[in-house]
Structure formats: structure tokens, C-alpha cells
């Protein structure tokens, strides 16, 4: 195969992979990008909670420890996450607590209030929050687990192919590195697509490649099957051991656990300069009780130290690196980079911007496909397929932003005592999106663009306005109290709204020239 035909076949691949799956890729990118501020969105959507500063590790552990001792004394496992700057409420989780008079087991997870002397549950409105939005980028919605797993793997793989083939077909990648020609029709869209792709290429490669690593056992099932056989349950159990370590069974001989003061002392003694990630207590209040202290390293939440103590005596049982092999270490670093949980505020914004650039890259690619053919084709040559792509582009590129805005507005406007409230927030998102997808099919394309841009801008402006009238954490309160994490959500809505208005103006101007 000579170079010319190789490039041609890569162009074909890039065009069709991009065209057929661009709308799903765009959905994954946009929801994933918003997910970089999932915890901030959680706070915003809980609405009833004013922003609070994190408390010390000692107090966090004391609250969680005491709460779990009352709530689930005979559980199989406790899980304690200390108070952190992005999520100041300590989290106490338990698994498999026997329920009296029943054979069923109780599991749950609660966030605890910071300001009460006794550990009490932090109760908030029923909302999907940022977590639901973030999970949509790989779980989508209304889908069965197997379907969403394979769909997200498939689309991620195609995205990765799209990125690599894009590098191959970009003839003058170095010469045209900084080239961008505005107001030149299809050429401008291509330049825009190229500049966005090239500038964020490391991010695109990292995010798609690490996305595949997330689901490597589903993606390459035979590798895991080679070691663990085809029994899915055994495989799942063995794989979870890699991340969490050996499972400790209860001896059913009750024993007194070490007290909170000793636990806190042991934690600070063993973590030293490292950051505490969480504490896992297996077989609590039992002779076999163990306490696993997990620390986190620079980039990956999954790597770092795993220190195991005897839960009754406090003696050190083992201390080792969480990743037991170089392959696992590599995977953990890639996963850490993908999630960006380690990122402080500056880097978090850079992640967000790279995500926005990635979403814009997909959008401009889809628009370029239409604009290029628009020049070539006469009005009567434009088939149904062309019009379908044109309409879907509008409904997805602009409509998804409108749908996410509707999700935020629904959070504030749906009645607090509504049944399945959190689910209805998501229904509002998809209903809005459906309206925005149908709209371009029944309106002239030129008008559909500007109408959708303006309607979406209005929805975005509604976010801070509705927030002002329905909650106590509105923009004026958050800005005057220096709660920039929450204020940024209202401000971002305004900024994106202004950008959409300017785009609508530019579009109308271009169409009338």
C-alpha cells in the first residue's frame, strides 16, 4: 500500500467513524467534562447546604467510627472517607450488616454533618447531582449494564481510532500547527477542527486510551479468562482482590476494636507525608478485625501505600504498595490521569478546558462534514441523509447543552417531596434534549441554528436566576462569601450563555451577508 492510498483509507476511516458516532462521542465528552466538577455540582444541587470548610482527619474518623459502631456493628465491612476540601462531609459506608429477624443484609453509605457533637446523617434533597451527570459519560441512561459497557467500549475504541487516524491524515501537521483562517467557510471549520485537535492531542490520546484501560477485562476478556477461567463470579472476585486486597471473614467471636484515639495515632504514624485516601475496616468488632489504611500518590488514587493493622491490637500486619506489578502501576497511573481526582483547582480547570476543547473538536468535525458537502452539492442533490446529519448536528451540539441546563433548572424547580425526584431531573434532561433534536427537523436549518443557540443561552441564563429565587446559595451569597467553587457554576452558565449569544449573532450576520 503506498502512502497516498494509506492516507486515503485513513481519511475514509476518520470521516465515517467520526460521522456515524460523533453524537455519542460528543455526549460522552460533554458529560465527562462536566464531571470534572462533579463534587462542586453535588453541593450546588443539594442547595440546602452552605459551603463548609473541611474538618481534621481526627474529627472525621471519630465521627465516622462512632456512627458505624451504632449503625452497623456486625457488618462485614466498614469504609471511612475523611473530610476533604472538595467534599467536606466525612463518608461512612457499611456492607452486609445482618438485619434482625430477616435473612437479608443491609448495606449503605451516609455523609455526616460536621457541626454536631454526635455523628448525624447529612440529609439533603433527593438529587442526582454531579455524580449522576458524570456517570452518564460511560453509563449513558435507560440502559442495561451489559449494553452500556459494550457501547462505551466500542465508542471509546472508535474515538481512539479517530484520534490516531486524524494525526495520519493531517498532511501538514507541523507546517499548519498554528494555522487558523476565520470566515473562510468550510476551510475555517477544518482549521478550527485541526487546531482544537492538535492543541489537545495529548489529552485526547490519554483520555481515550485510559478509557479503554478502565474496561480492559470487558474489552479483552480472554486475558482475564486465561488466568481465572470463564466463571464470571470468580473472575470478579479475583479482580476486586487486586484493588482491595484479601477478604477477611468474621470469626464470630466478638472483640473490642482499638479506640478512635489509637486509630488516629496509627493513621498519622503510618501515613506521614502521604495523603490519607480512605480506611477500610473488615470484620469490625470481631476477633479477625483488620484495618486497612489506604494512602494516595501524586497522580493515581489507586496507587500509594496499603497499610494493614490488626483491628483489635493495632499491630502492623503488612505495609506494601497497592500496585503489585508494573502493569498494574501503569494501569493505575492511566486511570488516575483519566479521572483527575488528584487535581487541585488550577489543574481541574485545565482538565475542564481540555474537555471543552475535545467536545468542540468533535462538534467542528461534524459541522465541517456538512459545510464541505454544502459547497459541493446543489440544493436538490442534498438527500435525506444529508439533512438528517445537518439536523442531528444542531440537535446534539446545541441541544445537549440546553438539556444539561434543564437538568440544573429542574433541580431547583421540581417539588422537594416529589417521588423519584432525582430520576425526574434526568428525565427533564432527556425530554429537553428530545425537543431540541426534533426542532431542526421541522424548522429551516438556518433558522434552527440561531433559534437553538438563543434558546440554549436563555436556559443557561435561567440557571443563576432560578437559583437566586429558590436557594440560599445563590450567586450573590456565594460570591460575597468567597465560595468560588459554587459561584463558578452560576458564572460559567452566564459565560457560556454569552458565548452562545455571540455565536448566534455571528451566525445570523454570516447568513445575511
Amino acid at each position: 500500500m503506498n502512502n497516498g492510498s494509506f492516507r486515503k483509507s485513513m481519511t475514509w476511516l476518520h470521516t465515517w467513524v467520526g460521522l456515524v458516532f460523533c453524537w455519542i462521542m460528543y455526549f460522552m465528552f460533554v458529560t465527562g467534562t462536566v464531571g470534572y466538577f462533579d463534587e462542586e455540582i453535588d453541593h450546588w444541587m443539594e442547595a440546602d447546604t452552605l459551603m463548609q470548610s473541611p474538618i481534621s482527619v481526627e474529627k472525621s474518623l471519630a465521627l465516622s467510627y462512632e456512627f458505624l459502631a451504632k449503625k452497623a456493628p456486625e457488618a462485614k465491612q466498614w469504609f471511612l472517607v475523611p473530610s476533604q476540601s472538595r467534599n467536606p462531609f466525612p463518608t461512612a459506608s457499611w456492607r452486609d450488616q445482618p438485619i434482625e429477624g430477616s435473612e437479608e443484609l443491609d448495606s449503605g453509605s451516609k455523609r455526616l454533618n460536621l457541626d454536631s457533637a454526635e455523628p448525624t446523617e447529612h440529609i439533603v434533597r433527593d438529587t442526582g447531582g454531579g455524580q449522576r451527570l458524570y456517570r452518564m459519560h460511560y453509563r449513558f441512561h435507560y440502559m442495561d449494564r451489559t449494553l452500556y459497557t459494550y457501547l462505551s467500549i466500542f465508542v471509546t475504541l472508535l474515538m481512539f481510532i479517530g484520534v490516531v487516524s486524524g494525526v495520519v491524515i493531517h498532511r501538514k501537521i507541523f507546517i499548519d500547527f498554528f494555522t487558523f483562517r476565520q470566515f473562510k467557510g468550510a476551510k475555517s471549520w477544518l482549521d478550527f477542527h485541526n487546531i482544537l485537535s492538535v492543541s489537545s492531542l495529548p489529552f485526547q490520546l490519554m483520555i481515550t486510551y485510559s478509557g479503554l484501560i478502565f474496561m480492559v477485562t470487558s474489552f479483552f476478556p480472554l486475558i482475564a479468562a486465561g488466568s481465572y477461567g470463564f466463571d464470571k463470579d470468580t473472575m470478579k472476585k479475583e479482580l476486586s482482590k487486586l484493588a482491595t486486597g484479601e477478604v477477611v471473614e468474621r470469626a464470630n467471636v466478638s472483640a473490642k476494636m482499638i479506640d478512635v484515639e489509637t486509630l488516629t495515632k496509627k493513621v498519622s504514624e503510618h501515613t506521614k507525608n502521604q495523603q490519607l485516601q480512605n480506611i477500610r475496616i473488615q470484620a469490625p468488632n470481631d476477633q479477625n478485625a483488620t484495618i486497612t489504611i489506604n494512602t494516595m500518590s501524586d497522580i493515581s488514587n489507586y496507587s500509594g501505600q496499603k497499610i494493614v493493622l490488626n483491628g483489635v491490637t493495632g499491630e502492623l500486619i503488612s505495609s506494601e504498595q497497592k500496585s503489585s506489578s508494573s502493569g498494574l502501576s501503569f494501569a493505575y497511573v492511566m486511570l488516575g490521569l483519566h479521572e483527575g481526582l488528584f487535581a487541585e483547582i488550577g489543574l481541574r480547570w485545565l482538565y475542564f478546558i481540555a474537555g471543552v476543547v475535545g467536545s468542540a473538536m468533535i462538534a467542528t468535525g461534524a459541522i465541517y462534514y456538512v459545510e464541505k458537502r454544502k459547497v459541493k452539492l446543489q440544493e436538490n442533490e442534498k438527500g435525506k441523509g444529508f439533512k438528517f446529519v445537518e439536523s442531528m448536528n444542531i440537535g446534539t451540539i446545541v441541544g445537549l447543552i440546553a438539556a444539561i441546563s434543564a437538568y440544573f433548572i429542574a433541580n431547583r424547580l421540581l417539588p422537594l417531596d416529589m417521588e423519584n425526584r432525582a430520576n425526574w431531573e434526568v428525565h427533564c434532561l432527556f425530554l429537553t434534549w428530545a425537543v431540541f433534536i426534533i426542532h431542526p427537523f421541522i424548522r429551516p436549518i438556518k433558522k434552527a441554528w440561531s433559534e437553538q443557540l438563543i434558546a440554549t443561552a436563555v436556559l443557561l441564563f435561567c440557571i443563576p436566576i432560578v437559583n437566586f429565587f429558590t436557594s440560599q446559595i445563590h450567586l450573590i451569597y456565594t460570591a460575597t462569601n468567597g465560595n468560588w467553587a459554587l459561584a463558578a457554576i452560576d458564572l460559567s452558565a452566564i459565560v457560556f450563555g454569552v458565548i452562545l449569544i455571540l455565536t448566534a449573532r455571528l451566525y445570523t450576520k454570516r447568513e445575511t451577508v
Partner: protein
Amino acid sequence: MMLLISFAISQLATFIIAMSMPKHYRQILTTHQQTGLVKITLMLVGWSMIILAIFVLALQQSISLALTEYFGVVTLNIILTALFFDSYARKRATSKNNAYSRNRNTVQNQSISAKY
């Protein structure tokens, strides 16, 4: 703070590297011909500044975090540089066109007044 300093250095660096390309050099300095020495000098200065920008980020954190941050920073730098070069070239072309039409009008007016 280090992020902002690194951003500023890296922005300047990408601008200088763009200037080392004849195509962009002509967009800014239309009257000057780029020589081989100027090209190499600009490239050397630009790449050195990129290394400096990474080094600045690595001052207060590990190199792995610094590199992660740098890839985010340079994404913005490239887009801003591309936007700047295009806007500058268009502005220049517009003012050149305006000057040209002004001159043409003046010449036309002069020839009309000379005629009468």
C-alpha cells in the same frame, strides 16, 4: 501562582516558535525576509522557554504533576497563538485595504480637480 507564571512563559514560547515558521513570520513582519539564523535563533529561544515553563511548574510539585499541568497549559497557548496570528493578519489586511481605498480616492480626487 506558578501556574500563571508558567502559562505566561509558555504563551511567549509558543508565539516565538510560531514566529520561527516563515508563514507566520511573514504575517507579522511583512517587510523583513526571515534568514536561517533568525529561524534557528527563534526556535532555540522558543523551545528553551518551553523547558523553562515546565521547570517552573516542577518547582513546587513532582515532575509528573508538572507535566500533566503543562499539557493543559500548552493546549490553551496553542489556541491563543493561532487566534492571535489570524486576527493580526486580518486586521492588517483590513487596514491595508482601507489605506489603499483612501489613497485611490485621493488620487481620483486630485485627477478630477486637475481636470477641471
